[in-house]
């Protein structure tokens, strides 16, 4: 498409054409109306003056006779101007005035008529038009008074010329303006199109130009930029996830492969093979577990599980999960205390919340164990699992007396796959906290890590249900 073709095809230009047509028609109508009224005004003026003159002349004739009339007429005829005078005898012969010739029959008709005439002092054949009034005087004499219409014609000419000129001007200015505006708008759209094409080609950091005028194009560009921001964040998240998946799945896969190779290379007896195979089976189960946890997080974050939300009491799942883990805690020499006595109504996915809570309790047991192992204190750890209604929110709390998490590391600990150094000894996918955080977000809540002095306090705050 050529530049001109593009310009003409643009919406702005088409709009300009529509407006231009409307304005041209409007100007033409206005000028026509003006011309019509001006013509009428001039005619009225002529008739008024002619009437006044005829009245005066008739008076003079009646009062002072024909001689006086002829005297006045001859006097007036000598004055230059557009006035016409003629007095005729009953025979039709001209007695005085400045009219050379008239259209036939005009002088015989009393009253108003438009006619062509030639002045007495004019030699050329050119004829002018005039508006005349003929009056019958007593004694068979006739008086004609009129005005040349040249002035009216000239006026019409001026107005017509003005009309033509202004319409032409409107069209020229309109077209020029249209081109100008369209080109300006087109240039901005072209810039946007270019940018989006670059973005589509893969440069996600590119943003649409914003001029800062706050007009509709700017608003559109700002909105699109916000959208791009969100897409970029999602893409970044996705990349992070795939990087992490690559890391967290490749590491055990490598171990698996190494075990395979080692078994093939060094196993001597059937018992050797069996040992290796069993450890490989365990390794692959760990892989599956990590993979499941990842899928679960992705699922929770996509908001898919939002369909299965029901209203229930959070105390129930706290008691349920605590009951599941209580023997394990006891076996580890820890005490698991439940504080879920009051009603804590929420609306949510029971299974996911139970799983989130189970992950937190599982972590608490693991890390408390680390702690008691480290200090040789043993059996001192107490884990508290609680559900509490606090104003508009319901808090699910898991608190332990383990090593805790340093304040600086807390934000990072909730991220996917992060397993903080001191926890390296504890088994698990490292996804427990991330999953719990994702589940909290799915329910419109949030997960925070706090200092239990000593130990860690994980709080899932959810909106209170009815």
């Amino acid at each position, binding site marked *: 498409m050529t530049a001109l073709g593009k310009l003409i095809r643009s919406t702005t230009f088409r709009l300009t054409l529509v407006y231009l047509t409307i304005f041209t028609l409007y100007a033409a109508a206005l000028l026509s109306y003006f011309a019509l009224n001006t013509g009428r005004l001039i005619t009225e003026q002529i008739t008024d003056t002619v009437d006044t003159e005829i009245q005066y002349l008739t008076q003079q004739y009646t009062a002072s006779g024909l001689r006086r009339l002829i005297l006045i007429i001859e006097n007036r005829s000598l004055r230059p101007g557009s006035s016409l005078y003629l007095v005729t005898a009953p025979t039709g012969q001209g007695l005085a005035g400045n009219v050379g010739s008239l259209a036939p029959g005009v002088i015989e008709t009393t009253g108003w008529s438009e006619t062509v005439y030639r002045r007495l002092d004019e030699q050329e054949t050119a004829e002018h038009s005039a508006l005349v009034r003929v009056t019958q005087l007593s004694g068979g004499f006739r008086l004609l008074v009129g005005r040349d219409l040249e002035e009216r014609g000239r006026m019409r000419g001026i107005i017509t010329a003005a009309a033509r000129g202004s319409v032409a001007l409107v069209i020229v200015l309109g077209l020029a303006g249209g081109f100008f505006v369209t080109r300006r708008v087109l240039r901005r759209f072209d810039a946007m199109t270019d940018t989006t094409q670059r973005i589509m080609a893969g440069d996600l950091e590119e943003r649409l130009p914003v001029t800062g005028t706050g007009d509709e194009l700017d608003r559109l560009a700002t909105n699109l930029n916000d959208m791009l921001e969100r897409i970029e964040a999602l893409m970044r998240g996705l990349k992070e996830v795939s990087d992490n998946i690559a890391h967290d799945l490749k590491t055990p896969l490598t171990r698996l492969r190494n075990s395979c190779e080692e078994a093939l290379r060094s196993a001597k007896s059937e018992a050797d093979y069996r040992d290796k195979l069993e450890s490989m089976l365990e390794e692959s*189960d760990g892989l*599956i*577990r990590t993979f*499941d*946890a990842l*899928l*679960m997080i992705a*699922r929770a974050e996509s908001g898919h*599980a939002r*369909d*299965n939300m029901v209203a229930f009491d959070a105390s129930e799942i706290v008691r*349920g999960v605590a*009951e*599941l*883990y209580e*023997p*394990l805690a006891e*076996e580890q020499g820890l005490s698991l205390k439940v504080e879920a006595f009051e009603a804590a109504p929420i609306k949510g996915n029971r*299974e*996911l919340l*139970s*799983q989130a809570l*189970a*992950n937190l309790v*599982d972590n608490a*047991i*693991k890390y408390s164990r680390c702690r008691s192992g480290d200090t040789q204190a043993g059996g001192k750890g107490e884990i508290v699992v609680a559900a509490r209604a606090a104003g508009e929110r319901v808090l699910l709390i898991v608190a332990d007396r383990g090593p805790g998490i340093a304040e600086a590391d807390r934000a990072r600990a909730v991220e996917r796959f992060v397993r903080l150094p001191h926890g390296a000894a504890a*088994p*698990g*996918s490292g996804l*427990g906290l991330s999953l719990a955080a994702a589940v909290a977000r799915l329910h419109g809540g949030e997960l925070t890590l706090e200092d239990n002095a000593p130990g860690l306090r994980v709080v899932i705050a959810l909106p209170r249900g009815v």
Partner: protein
Amino acid sequence: MIADNSLDFPATRVQHTPMRLLLIEDDRDAADYLVKAFREVGHVADWAADGEEGLALAAEGAYDVLVVDRMLPKLDGLSVISALRAKKVETPVLILSALGQVDDRVRGLRAGGDDYLPKPYSFSELLARIEVLARRRGGRGEETAYRVGDLELDRLSHSVKRGAAEIDLQPREFRLLEYLMKHAGQVVTRTMLLENVWDYHFDPQTNVIDVHISRLRSKIDKGFAQPLLHTIRGAGYMIRDGAR
């Protein structure tokens, strides 16, 4: 107890009543593996590679359990099951699927499936579930009392006795024992216990079930010469009268 066959699953050390199974699965390798593995433990398995063939076979054949993959060529697994149920074929169905989330599972069971196992699964898990399904059909259903050896569980009075001794169990321990005894002589996996006794369908990371079992064991087996609650290595647990 050393098995000398090439596919040595822990579960194969358990007695199996021979069953006729139909496997509807489009992945040839997976199907070959399963058919062979079923044969190793004494079951007969037919294989259908797509939904239409599977539906035809299942409708006419007398199978004990159908194992149906969800995603199949020609006719998907859930449609096969719905079609069978519409024809009043009530053979128990176990659904295998790569979709393992709770709502997928609910959809599968709603379509007429009796159990749902997400991929990847272990063969012992699959086998244990199939045998439970077959048995459910065979008879031992909702009885009011179960008895294994000298252990008795009364579902109405919620009481448990071993010999003459009354055993005091927590409600959850009672339900655990009830489930094990309902499936006495069959392998019950940890996942099955978590699903049926606790109604959780997620992986609790640590083997919490083991601790519950050992508590239960200390209550019902401690001090008795003949243990009834057995651990089946690599598979799960089983209550069995060891004397037989």
